[in-house]
């Protein structure tokens, strides 16, 4: 018997990892394209609007035609559509989102003032929803049909069917107002008390204000993470490597923790990021109900007034950040999943 000696392993050389950069660049390029599309679409969508924004501005006030013209000129509405478009794009790429009709201030400033609280709320809610969903989903999917599975899937499905604002209102009525024996222990509005103490007391105060809004968002959002995690774990249960792990003598929970969950996590992670837009959408109603001074509330106000520059600016910002988050997610996913990493 001869084993032909040509160094087979010479061909089997260590791979060089330069795919990631190329991939990241491609993704960023794609994101930029998406953002460009958003900008164009936003411009035209908001120009389709019936009605004259300047009149909206003049609402009920006595303004002379000269004043109106002046205002129009200030907003660049006296130019042709093409010129306006160029102007709009130019402004937008220079991070100028225009001036709010209602607040008479740059939209970007208004957003800047509120983005922190939105990030705090959605960030916390997202982290909680994701952890809860993944934890429960993993356990439920590992033992499909078990009592834990039935219970957690059932609860999450019920909560998932609940309109966010309705749940928020109920929670507000029960836990902020207090009903019967339940005391209204949580605050009715906002992110902090007017007389919030400093230091750690402040943190506690904010935390207390966050309980209900967070709970509302988590309740509605976590179901999808649970369900995705559950089904991806379910997919892993039958995989051969799980059988291998069993054959190796691993305990059941070790198999779940060390093998099934890391594999199932990856599809869930993509979903987490892909559904960020959904969470942001939920923020609009939650912030309105709990008077949370964030972007969602600003957006809601812009819609109610309506303040089209503000609406447009907020929409642009929300969309662009969701796109960027998605891009980030793609790249992170790429970093995390060895299968994609060097493919």
């Amino acid at each position, binding site marked *: 018997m*001869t084993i*032909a000696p040509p160094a*087979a*392993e010479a*061909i089997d050389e260590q791979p060089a990892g330069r795919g990631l950069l190329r991939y990241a660049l491609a993704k960023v390029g794609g994101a930029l394209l998406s953002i460009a599309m958003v900008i164009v679409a936003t411009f035209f969508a908001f120009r389709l609007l019936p009605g004259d924004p300047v009149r909206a501005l003049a609402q009920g006030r006595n303004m002379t035609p000269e004043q109106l013209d002046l205002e129009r000129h200030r907003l660049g509405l006296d130019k042709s559509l093409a010129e306006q478009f160029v102007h709009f794009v130019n402004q937008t790429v220079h991070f100028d989102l225009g001036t709010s009709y209602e607040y008479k201030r740059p939209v970007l400033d208004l957003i800047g003032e509120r983005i922190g609280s939105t990030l705090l709320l959605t960030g916390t809610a997202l982290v909680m929803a994701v952890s809860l969903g993944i934890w429960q989903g993993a356990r439920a999917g590992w033992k499909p049909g078990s009592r834990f599975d039935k219970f957690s899937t059932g609860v999450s499905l019920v909560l998932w069917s609940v309109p966010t604002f309705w749940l928020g209102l109920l929670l507000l009525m029960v836990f902020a107002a207090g009903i019967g024996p339940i005391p209204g222990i949580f605050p009715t509005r906002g992110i902090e008390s007017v007389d919030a103490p400093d230091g750690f007391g402040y943190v506690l105060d904010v935390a207390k204000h966050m309980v209900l809004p967070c709970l509302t968002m988590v309740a509605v959002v976590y179901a999808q993470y649970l369900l995705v995690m559950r089904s991806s774990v379910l997919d892993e249960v039958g995989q051969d490597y799980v059988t291998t792990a069993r054959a190796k003598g691993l305990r059941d929970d070790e198999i779940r923790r060390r093998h099934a969950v890391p594999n199932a996590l990856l599809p869930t992670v993509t979903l987490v990021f892909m559904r960020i837009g959904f969470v942001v959408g939920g923020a609009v109603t939650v912030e309105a109900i709990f008077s949370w001074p964030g972007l969602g509330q600003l957006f809601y106000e812009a819609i109610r007034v309506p303040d089209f520059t503000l609406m447009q600016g907020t929409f642009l910002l929300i969309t662009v950040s969701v796109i960027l988050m998605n891009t980030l997610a793609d790249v992170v996913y790429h970093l995390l999943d060895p299968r994609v990493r060097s493919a």
Partner: protein
Amino acid sequence: MLEATSLAVEFASRGRRPARAVDGVNLSVGAGEIVALVGESGCGKTTLARTLLGLERPSSGTVSYDGTPLSYRAKALKAYRRQVQLVLQDPMGSLNPRQTVYEAVAEGPRIHGLPDEEKVVAEALSRAGLRPPERFFLRYPHELSGGQRQRVVIAGALALNPKVLIADEPVASLDASVRGEILALLLRLRDELGLSALVVTHDLGLAWNIADRVAVMYLGRIVESGPTEQILKSPQHPYTQALLSVLPESPARIVLTGEPPDPTRIPGGCRFHPRCQVVASGNPIADKCRTDVLPILPASDAAQAACHLL
């Protein structure tokens, strides 16, 4: 009848070197002839078969049928595909699980608008050995055994009354006990209908079982071809020799290390030299193997091999 001339197929993929899956192949299948195309995994057999059917466009070279080069316009392709048919490796996969046997076999006649659909279908089924055909009309693929499924696929091809059948690993997914039956069917069809066939396989035993001629492929090229008996009994090319040596009954086995190298990086000189046992054993000709490019084998019936040793 069906002929490929200096056929090459490249797959370009972004950010990578193009894969030259088929890299200069001359091959012909005569009327009523069964040709076996053998080779290791990834050497381009399937790609060649697909290209012959016009499912893949060659980057250079031509496929011609009855002397006329294949045109890639939709109409011409459709007409061509009445003459040349394909049978795939996985009979379960090649049948739409939502279609009954009848629908599956009638698909071709429907596409080509043949008259007397039911008769055609019944005839094709019975030719493929599913008798009485009516019993099978309304079955779904999952209700059939593997061998029956493959017969349905063959019947689907036969329904168009083709002249040439290209079978890509037709029995690879079938149980050992069943494959003989399918191979016998191919032989019988050749005898009864004068059907030509190109059978793609990695199984030398299969070639021995049914093929008139064998072509051995390595990394996109045919390295040896000729009448079956001659090639399989006295292989000339070191690669063919190695392939034959690992069959269980062979006395001395030459196990090539590594996998077939990747078609994106075809070595210079003789493309087999990095794995060649003769080169490795320090044969003086080795230098030539590393540097000198070999000519493409012509599409001839006689036994021939592309090797510097010869």
